[in-house]
């Protein structure tokens, strides 16, 4: 079986368990405060890591290239509260331009 299919199957089962635990099992019993805090913070850690690794990661090497220009431009665009489509277009355009120049 293909790796992506295996990931898909595992994530389908695991995600459904996480999504349905409240409505099917727990009801409205609140999560313990500590668990709630970890749950609240977890996405920030992972999304920040994914941002950095997808920007400068190149297998096992750190590569500073045009993608970093794109990320900085994306940050500026988000700071100005521009819509997601605009953020993506500006980031891609800046990266392409940086490659053309260098």
């Amino acid at each position: 079986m293909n790796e992506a299919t295996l990931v898909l199957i595992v994530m389908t089962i695991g995600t459904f368990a996480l999504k349905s635990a409240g409505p099917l099992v727990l009801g409205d019993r609140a999560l313990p405060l500590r668990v709630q805090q970890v749950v609240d913070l977890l996405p920030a850690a992972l999304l920040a890591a994914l941002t950095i690794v997808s920007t400068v990661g190149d297998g096992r090497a750190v590569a500073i290239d045009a993608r970093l220009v794109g990320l900085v431009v994306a940050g500026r665009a988000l700071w100005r509260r521009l819509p997601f489509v605009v953020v993506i277009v500006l980031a891609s355009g800046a990266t392409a331009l940086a490659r053309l120049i260098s």
Partner: protein
Amino acid sequence: MKRAIHRQAASIVAAVAPFGIVFGAAAATAGLSLVQAMGFSLFVFGGSSQFAAVEILGDGGSVASAAIAGLLLNVRSLAFGVIMAPALVGTWWQRAAMSQLMIDESTAVGAAQHERRWRRYGYLVAGIGVFLVWNVTTAVGHVAFAGAGDLITELGLDAAGPAAFLALLWPRLSSAPQRRTAIVGALIALALIPFAPPGVPILASMLGVAAGRVGARRADEEVLT
């Protein structure tokens, strides 16, 4: 009431469309087939977790690291489930079916309503709307960018992934514990890139949560004193 909910849901659903296209394109670039990309959007149905898994697979990460990173990003649906549970009334299989729509958008619209039946209605309208748009745009993104090859780098579209992750992270950065978590998580991942197999730096970033909690505890104490 219905009209107000429809309006809230419509703007949220529309915002999902470009994300879906970027996900479809990312899946194609990572070497996933159209069927696999659609499988993720239909059965996993959780934007950031799908992005994470596809990113790690594309980098050559293991099945375990891709699946675990993806699942960690869906742990928050456990908290959403607890919030929405009282409103999601029905037989067990109806509740199971409604659970599949447990995402940020449906929970946001549902939890914004004051009466129980409107909470359920808002949750379902936003959830079904996002589900339809997400799946259609995933297919569009995959078909449009499958086989694009060199065009991806020429158009700078390899920066779309990092930009999308940053956009997902951005709204969370308004609180100090979240910012600390993000910075420490990013530094841990960056430091590990040369030493760990692809995907593992992402998983290790969860230790950044400790940095966020240190600050949260201090804030609690300040409130108490």
